[in-house]
């Protein structure tokens, strides 16, 4: 596709898109939020009025051009409005992860130099106040939910409603200034700054321009034929680039409605009530959903269970074909229709997926069984591959070409190149402007011609043109004997078992591979209940001999499957242990988007890794843990280390080609 640019006539900024939407679909719902048990709706015209009031209020408080305005909280319309209002006032919104602890927040707030912070509730205000003791530049904190904040010192603290009221009151005085600032926004001005989750090192502030966001939203909306009647549920962290693109970029470009759940706990009910037509979720959400469906079916009566499996098995063979428009026999169609009536339709309804036209998953590899399950239900689930630096989209799967093992073809306007070392590079209109205050990293990531290194190793399938990702480029290593080591490849295979939540594989520069395993408490806990195995804690269940037996059988199955791949047969797991604690972002072991931070885990559990390679049958260890409120504690355990059977490669060992 030709490289389109935002030409004359197309709105140049998000506030300009807002004005266009008010003119085009002023009375159509733009935002919904469930509050007090009822879905409250704001039309585009109403939303624009609210946004205008916030923007005027911000001006009254003294927001300057180019200021960074931090936004922290769960997905609520008022916070989305705040971001657009900040843009209107000439400032740059910086959404932060709401579950970040104060220390993590301190770094980002200090780095971006935010003078204004807009928060959701007391929890966030408390953290910002804590940060403020060290980072003195924060001048005003604005909150939406007043609960618990009555007694606070309000010298620097403002309720969002008051800010809006002040803005409305000062309407005459500030309207001119606001209009002037809005008129100054052009395609190259900064739209938003998003911090990367920081798999390695400190988070980096990715500066995205209006052009990046609008071009990408336009191209991707057209790719999937999104229209103003689509509905999305906004439930993913606002600090994540995906949410910004879906809930602001694409929503403003196409004019569809963004729905915010009542609370994190009611997500599933709200999903059902809204029935989104366009849905995005990381693989973890799909996995958890599948696990819970399967567990509930285990508990169902024998007749229902048999009916479920009978029709699901049939749907697995027929469903994907129907989705891809392949020919299916009349009898099979009839049976699928019957299954749809009795099992699949009701199941989709329960999951809140009856109306999904387009569903995406990204961020991590998704298990083929999981992928097939949703495709079998007739849900058009596709994969995409992207990064913050690309304004999300690098590749995505077109309808009818969906496969679990690839991430699709380049998105419209994106060029892809694989360099000699196997690393994937891309160039697109969505490529970020720079890393904020970090010219060095910008230069090492983006070259003069605009090519950006993804940090992932992959290759393009010659006959289909689909991109396949192997692993993080810097994680792909060599074992002591020179064989290829791709930890994620093996970890993903392990994680596809419902009992395994997380796995970390070691082996770079070593003779053999070993692994840490995290069990999935939902799945294993249910199994324990069914078998009358009592346990008091995660730790106890994780150390149960029968659990270890099960995990061992999973590991051995993975070994057999890995052995079939000549190139990666060296990555079979010789020894493993089940960790005594769940890997957690609060302890720094995972990123906020729940990706494994390998280096930190290696350092933290050095004693366990040593034990894995020394051949000891068990190892005593103590680990520091951080509780939700930031306090620290210690847990100790003696972990059993098991040997897993491996399959020796049939052919004489060859040095793997890269």
């Amino acid at each position, binding site marked *: 596709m030709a490289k389109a640019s935002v030409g004359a006539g197309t709105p140049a900024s998000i506030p300009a898109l807002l004005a266009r939407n008010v003119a085009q679909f002023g009375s159509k719902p733009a935002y919904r939020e*469930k509050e*007090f*048990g009822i879905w409250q709706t704001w039309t585009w015209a109403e939303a624009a009025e609210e946004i205008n009031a916030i923007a005027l209020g911000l001006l009254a408080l003294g927001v300057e051009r180019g200021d960074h305005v931090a936004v922290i909280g769960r997905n609520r319309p008022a916070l989305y409005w705040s971001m657009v209002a900040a843009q209107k006032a000439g400032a740059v919104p910086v959404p932060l992860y709401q579950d970040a602890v104060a220390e993590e927040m301190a770094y980002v707030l200090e780095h971006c130099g935010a003078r204004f912070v807009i928060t959701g509730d007391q929890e966030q205000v408390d953290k910002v106040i804590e940060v403020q003791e060290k980072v003195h530049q924060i001048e005003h904190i604005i909150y939406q939910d007043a*609960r*618990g904040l*009555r*007694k606070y010192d309000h010298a620097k603290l403002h309720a969002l409603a008051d800010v809006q009221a002040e803005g409305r009151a000062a309407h005459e005085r500030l309207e001119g200034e606001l209009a002037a600032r809005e008129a100054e926004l052009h395609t190259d001005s900064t739209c938003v700054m998003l911090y990367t989750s920081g798999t390695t090192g400190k988070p980096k502030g990715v500066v995205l321009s209006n052009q990046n966001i609008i071009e990408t939203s336009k191209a991707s909306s057209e790719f999937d034929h999104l229209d103003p009647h689509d509905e999305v549920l906004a439930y993913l962290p606002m600090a994540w680039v995906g949410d910004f693109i879906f809930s602001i970029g694409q929503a403003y470009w196409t004019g569809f409605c963004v729905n915010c759940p*009542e*609370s994190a*706990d009611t997500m599933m009910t709200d999903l059902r009530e809204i029935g989104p037509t366009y849905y995005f979720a990381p693989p973890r959400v799909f996995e958890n959903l599948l696990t819970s469906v399967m567990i509930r079916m285990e508990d169902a009566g024998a007749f229902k269970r048999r009916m479920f499996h009978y029709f699901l098995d049939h749907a697995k063979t027929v469903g994907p074909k129907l989705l891809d428009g392949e020919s299916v026999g009349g009898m099979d169609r009839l049976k699928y229709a019957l299954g749809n009536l009795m099992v699949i339709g009701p199941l989709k309804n329960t999951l809140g997926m009856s109306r999904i036209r387009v569903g995406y998953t990204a961020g991590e590899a998704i298990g083929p069984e999981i992928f097939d399950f949703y495709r079998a239900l007739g849900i058009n689930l596709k994969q995409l591959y992207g990064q913050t630096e690309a304004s999300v989209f690098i590749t995505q799967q077109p309808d009818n070409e969906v496969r679990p093992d690839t991430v699709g073809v380049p998105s419209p306007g994106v060029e892809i190149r694989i360099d000699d070392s196997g690393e994937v590079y891309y160039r697109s209109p969505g490529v970020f402007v720079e890393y904020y205050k970090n010219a060095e990293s910008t230069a090492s990531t983006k070259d003069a011609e605009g090519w950006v290194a993804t940090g992932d190793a992959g290759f393009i399938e010659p006959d289909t043109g689909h991109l396949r990702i192997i692993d993080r480029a810097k994680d792909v290593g060599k074992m002591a004997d020179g064989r290829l080591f791709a930890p994620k490849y093996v970890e993903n295979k392990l994680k596809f078992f419902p009992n395994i939540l997380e796995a970390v594989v070691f082996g770079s520069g070593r003779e053999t591979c070993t692994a840490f395993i995290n069990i999935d408490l939902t799945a294993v806990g249910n199994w324990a209940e069914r078998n009358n195995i009592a346990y008091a804690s995660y730790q106890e269940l994780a150390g149960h001999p029968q659990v270890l037996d099960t995990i061992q059988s999973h590991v051995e199955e993975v070994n057999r499957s890995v052995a079939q791949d000549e190139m990666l047969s060296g990555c079979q797991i010789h020894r493993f242990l089940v960790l005594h604690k769940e890997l957690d972002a609060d302890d720094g072991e995972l990123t906020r988007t729940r990706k494994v931070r390998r280096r930190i885990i290696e350092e933290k559990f050095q004693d366990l890794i040593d034990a894995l390679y020394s051949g000891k049958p068990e190892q005593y260890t103590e680990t520091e843990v951080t509780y939700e409120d930031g306090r620290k504690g210690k847990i100790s355990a003696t972990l059993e280390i098991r040997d897993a059977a491996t399959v020796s490669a049939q052919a004489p060992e060859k040095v793997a080609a890269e």
Partner: protein
Amino acid sequence: MKDLSQDGYTTEDGRKIGGVVMEMRNITLRFGGVVAIKDISFDIREGEIRAIIGPNGAGKSSMLNVISGFYHPQEGEVWYRGERRKPMKPYQVARQGIARTFQNIALFDGMSVLDNIMTGRINQMSASFFDQAFWWGKAQREEVENREKAEEIIDFLEIQHIRKTPVGRLPYGLKKRVELARALVAEPSILLLDEPMAGMNVEEKEDMSRFILDVNDEFGTTTVLIEHDMGVVMDLSDRVVVMDYGQKIGDGTPDEVRNNPQVIDAYLGVSHD
């Protein structure tokens, strides 16, 4: 030191505590030959969190029942909002604006959380039988009002996710919270909590403490609570009454009570070295 005059005082964290709402004067309560409460006097002030503590069988729950008006003491006087209280019929007890939760949860297991909470509004309903039967006129208006109030409380106590769940299916900690919701929805002027944290784990206790503080902060509700967990009591309450064998052995701020040797002896059981 606090100014305990009729005008009330201001707490360290800046809350205004008002005048005396209820005063107990030399209360004695007997069940046949058993003396449950012996000659106890204390007062409750507008907007404060007042705790009653004591070992098992000290007479705490009986005291709560005297406060609510469910028991009428044989001797002594209860003054509530400037009036001396006379023996009351149960419906009169219910209409005084004193709501409570129970030590052993008293909810309707088969009903949803929302319906349970709505029962707390029963005293605010005055539509006729006919209107109610046909959901007509006043009955309809009232229901909308009551539902609005109920939703406010649901939002406040963060129990949206179990709104439609039958209470019988809920874990213990959540049932306690639903009970608190039902008490709150009646918009009480005094809220009585009988062991709100009994049988809870640390996290549930922390949640509950936060809710009690928030309720007091947000609605200014005067709260009287009985509790075994000393840590919770000392953190939450403005003033504490200590009971032992039906008698009052201490009364004052948490710090005063903590350092009272009689209290230490009777309740904490720490030996004097």
